[in-house]
């Protein structure tokens, strides 16, 4: 248990370094939903860095897969339709709400943006309530 807390903290510190680099070098917020949304709705001169960011994520993923495949282990037996609905909600909700865990939860809170603080409290609360209801209904886990 203690080991998991330390990994979580270490991973968080690495994420903090990554978003700091993005701000220092490119002057941008590392909001992954926004980066992806901008990549699929190309605006002139604003697409390539977004695509390259996603390539970086995938290269990082492949490195993890090679060094420590257990980080992708999933004990979940989520049904396909559940994954589809989850993806639709996350895609729609993050663009409507201008951000996700990275943009609001890490970058926004770090600069004490009131919108990001509210969004983060709301999406964690919604997630907590949703998981409680899904478990009652026998939908997940």
């Amino acid at each position: 248990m203690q080991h998991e807390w330390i990994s979580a903290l270490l991973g968080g510190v690495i994420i903090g370094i990554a978003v700091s680099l993005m701000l220092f070098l490119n002057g941008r917020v590392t909001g992954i939903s926004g980066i992806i949304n901008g990549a699929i709705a190309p605006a002139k001169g604003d697409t390539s860095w977004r695509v390259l960011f996603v390539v970086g994520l995938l290269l990082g993923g492949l490195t993890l897969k090679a060094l420590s495949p257990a980080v992708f282990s999933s004990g979940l037996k989520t049904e396909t339709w559940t994954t589809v609905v989850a993806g639709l909600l996350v895609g729609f909700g993050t663009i409507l709400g201008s951000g996700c865990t990275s943009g609001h939860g890490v970058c926004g809170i770090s600069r004490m943006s009131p919108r990001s603080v509210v969004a983060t409290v709301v999406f964690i609360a919604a997630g907590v309530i949703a998981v409680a209801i899904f478990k009652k209904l026998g939908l997940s886990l």
Partner: protein
Amino acid sequence: MKNGLAALVVGFVFAIGLGVSGMTQPEKVIGFLDIFGSWDPSLIFVMVGGIVVHFATYKLIRKRGSPLLSTKWHVPTKKEITPALVIGATLFGVGWGLGGYCPGPAVTSLASFDAAPAIFVLSMIAGMILFRQIDKKLNIQK
């Protein structure tokens, strides 16, 4: 081009952070949200670690006149708490609890070649496109 290379490096480092932290394991994410059941609070430290580092660096970095590789800052300045923000965050939270994935870990997990993250990412992109189609008519986000 330099901005692209920087983004590539940031994406790589970010993905490693996600993998180390446990965020790429959907059952851990759902365990974190399962406060009323078998709660696994460890993922709170991902946010703590990220925020502590970036809270410190943000102020230092913004003391500069401009970013190293760009002429200006592109940081959001909007302050209003809008219905779109709250409703969007709610829908996102429900989807996060249902699938155990948020956007970054889902894209990173494509590298596992498992079906679930691929289905999730395709659906997520569909959700983004759906939002854009609706927003074109209703102009919700303005």
